[in-house]
């Protein structure tokens, strides 16, 4: 156990919270000292977001006390918490894209002179504020919509500081950032620390947690498992606390050379608005990893194969027969399934039941194929097989954790017994435990003879899962790598730092 600091900035004691009779938090204690980065880790559904909402005034706790700056507090809503000095930086920003940086930073409390907004003063203050956190390169009068994600994040932070935040909550701050931007965020976090600001840092990525935090609290099933000093723990130990399993057991065994079957899918010269000259072969029994930067055409490739935005040039062959994949229905009839990267936006129907979600595709496309009772029974079996955890199959899917939602989506596709599966970021936003369950499932599908194409931005996942890796850049294939390639090789191809391999 780590020692609590003598006079913490934030002290949570025995926090409990239930929703609809489900206990989400139970007796959680947590301290944050001024100038400390305190990381909170745990699987999805462990209670991290609920805890953060309690600290930032979004929810009132059912039990326990929140003490901030030495005084017991019961915040009445987020604004009240902000005024008291608690700022929160959400994964999704809350900025007005058509307004300038300064206007966003001082939104709602603009400096006023003679009843009018004092623009010059507002700009000056914003510049001073940005300079004080070392962000001199960010123009205070630039439109926020023109800034990159990393810079918008800085604006969010400045916004909180303009309200004299003493405690900042950062919820998965690097989720939307590119690798080089993460470095910049590190610098910013350290400068905030030097100003004496306490930081609560929620993240799935253990690397960051180790790089930045001084203490780590592990939550599991709404309870605090432990709080440790970062210097005295290891990633393995943390993962064990989170799921009770070693890090080394992460990825399932790859396919051997004999496991690969015949070529299922061939693309020759495939192109559309986002892709050019794509040549690709996908074999039964293999997991083909697709790497590349955001916007390199990875998702466009999956969407072309699934008929969402079909190829306009080139040929596609399925088991040696030419095929036209003009719509999702056509692709599904051809035995192709597609698990999208935007689970909330295009993967689930949030207010429908687990069962309705799992039955969606069977009902839509193969309604006449088998009797309703048989079909429902089969889908229930699949939900069992992928180990969905829910209160029942009539529970609305939105109440499930990301990992369980993804398993339901998977069951939806498995019900069609697809022969080709396209996975776009299958484990995005999913906790560690469910992640490895999904990895196992993906591999099992390949072993059972399906051809799997898997897109991933997470290099360890891409390297750990793939039997070969095709890297895309600017809508073209930049090169192919065998299993056992290194992160450096993938990145080099993705950014074009090496001569292109013959694709």
């Amino acid at each position, binding site marked *: 156990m780590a020692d609590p600091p003598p006079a913490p900035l934030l002290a949570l004691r025995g926090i409990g919270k239930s929703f609809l009779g489900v206990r989400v938090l139970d007796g959680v204690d947590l301290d944050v000292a001024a100038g400390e980065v305190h990381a909170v880790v745990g699987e999805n559904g462990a209670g991290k977001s609920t805890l953060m909402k309690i600290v930032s005034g979004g929810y009132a706790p059912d039990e326990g006390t929140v003490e901030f700056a030495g005084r017991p507090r019961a915040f009445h809503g987020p604004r009240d918490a902000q005024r008291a000095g608690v700022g929160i930086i959400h994964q999704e920003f809350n900025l007005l894209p058509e307004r300038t940086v300064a206007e966003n930073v001082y939104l709602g409390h603009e400096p006023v002179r003679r009843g009018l907004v004092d623009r010059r003063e507002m700009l000056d203050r914003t510049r001073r504020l940005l300079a004080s956190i070392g962000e001199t390169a960010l123009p205070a009068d630039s439109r926020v919509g023109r800034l990159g994600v990393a810079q918008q994040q800085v604006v969010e932070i400045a916004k909180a500081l303009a309200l004299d935040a003493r405690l900042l909550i950062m919820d998965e701050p690097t989720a939307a950032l590119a690798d080089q931007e993460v470095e910049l965020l590190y610098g910013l976090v350290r400068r905030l620390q030097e100003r004496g600001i306490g930081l609560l840092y929620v993240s799935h990525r253990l690397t960051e947690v180790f790089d930045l935090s001084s203490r780590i609290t592990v939550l599991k099933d709404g309870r605090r498992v432990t709080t440790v000093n970062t210097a005295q723990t290891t990633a393995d130990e943390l993962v064990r606390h989170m799921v009770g399993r070693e890090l080394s057991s992460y990825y399932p065994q790859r396919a051997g050379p004999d496991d690969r079957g015949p070529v299922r899918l061939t693309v020759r010269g495939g192109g559309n608005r986002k892709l050019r000259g794509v040549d690709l072969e996908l074999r039964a029994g293999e997991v083909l990893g697709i790497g590349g930067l955001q916007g390199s055409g990875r998702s466009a490739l999956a969407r072309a194969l699934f008929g969402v935005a079909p190829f306009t040039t080139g040929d596609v062959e399925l088991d040696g027969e030419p095929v036209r994949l003009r719509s*999702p229905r056509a692709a*599904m009839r051809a035995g192709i399934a597609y698990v999208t990267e935007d689970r909330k936006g295009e993967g*689930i129907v949030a*207010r429908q039941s687990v069962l309705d979600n799992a039955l969606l595709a069977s009902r839509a496309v193969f309604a006449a194929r088998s009797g309703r009772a048989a079909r429902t029974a089969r889908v229930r079996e699949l939900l069992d097989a992928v180990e969905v*955890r829910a209160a029942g199959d009539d529970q609305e899917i939105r109440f499930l954790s990301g990992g369980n939602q993804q398993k339901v989506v998977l069951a939806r596709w498995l019900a069609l017994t697809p022969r080709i599966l396209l996975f776009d970021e299958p484990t995005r936003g999913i906790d560690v435990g469910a992640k490895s369950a999904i990895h196992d499932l993906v591999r099992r599908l390949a072993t059972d003879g399906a051809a799997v194409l898997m897109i991933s931005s997470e290099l360890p996942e891409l390297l750990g899962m793939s039997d070969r890796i095709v890297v895309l850049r600017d809508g073209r294939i930049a090169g192919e790598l065998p299993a056992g390639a290194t992160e450096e090789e993938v990145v080099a191809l993705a950014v074009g730092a090496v001569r292109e391999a013959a694709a």
Partner: protein
Amino acid sequence: MRVAERRPLPLRIRTDGIAPIVALLTVLLILIAFVQPDFLAPSSLMSFLGRSAPIILLAAGQYFVIVCGEFDLSVGSLVTAQVVVAARLIDSDPSRTWPVVVLLLAGGALVGLVNGLVTTVLRVPSFITTLGMFLILVGAVYLWSDGAPKGGLSEEFRRFGRRAIEDVPLLGRIPYALLVLVVVAAIAVVLTRSDFGRTLVAVGDNPRTAELSGVRVVRTKTIAFMLSGLAAAVAAILLGGYSGVSFQAGVGLEFGAITAVVLGGVALGGGRGSVVGAMLGALTLETLFALMNFAGVSGALRSTVQGVIILLAVAVSSLRSSSSR
């Protein structure tokens, strides 16, 4: 699926979210029992249900459209048009009754088809599509009938909306309209439990997901509009019999139906609600009007009351859904 084996019974009617409307209806009936105890006598209650059948049918039709995320404002003028057309075509000739009934149903489906295709293929928001259809039908029916309804309905045609099976033990009488309602309601419930019905709600919840799961969104929504048109045709047959031929036959029914559906717990914008709730919403609305009538409240307040109900019901449901997030 792990834990809690709580599987729904195979024949269960989806009852999600109808508890509030059942409670409200009960309260209104209790109030009526104080103000006008005679109302609850079996034969009077049966007549009331028969009178309410058209609006309940329209609510059921409107349910399909609203639950997939659209609106149908054309049903009121569609009812008027159907009644006027029926009178002119039948022209008091009993032998034409059944052909005209078939024609009305086809006409209702056709109007729904046009509404659906304009909304989905031409991407006109359904609010505008069906408002346009409303105006087109109003104008067309005036033009076609030269400004005054002509002809007349046959007694056979009027039977559905006006007559009842009399001297039934216990119940007193069973209006034909009630029988029609029971049949249509049963069909509606079966439809919502079918693949089509479940898919329709999914389309209203998230059309993107539905599309990427192979749902033909255009077709599904168009069928919903056709169901609403069919329901309007049946309602027109009952109303023509009950209240006779006039240009006022269907005035305001579209708002009545939408109010009823919202009152019954169906989310505007789609994705949530049951057809049973929608139909109970219509019954509750009619019960409220009956209560107002008994209590001596001016009938002129009807539309005001509907307006207030719509605003309140939507406010309550959005507050609830935002707090449970």
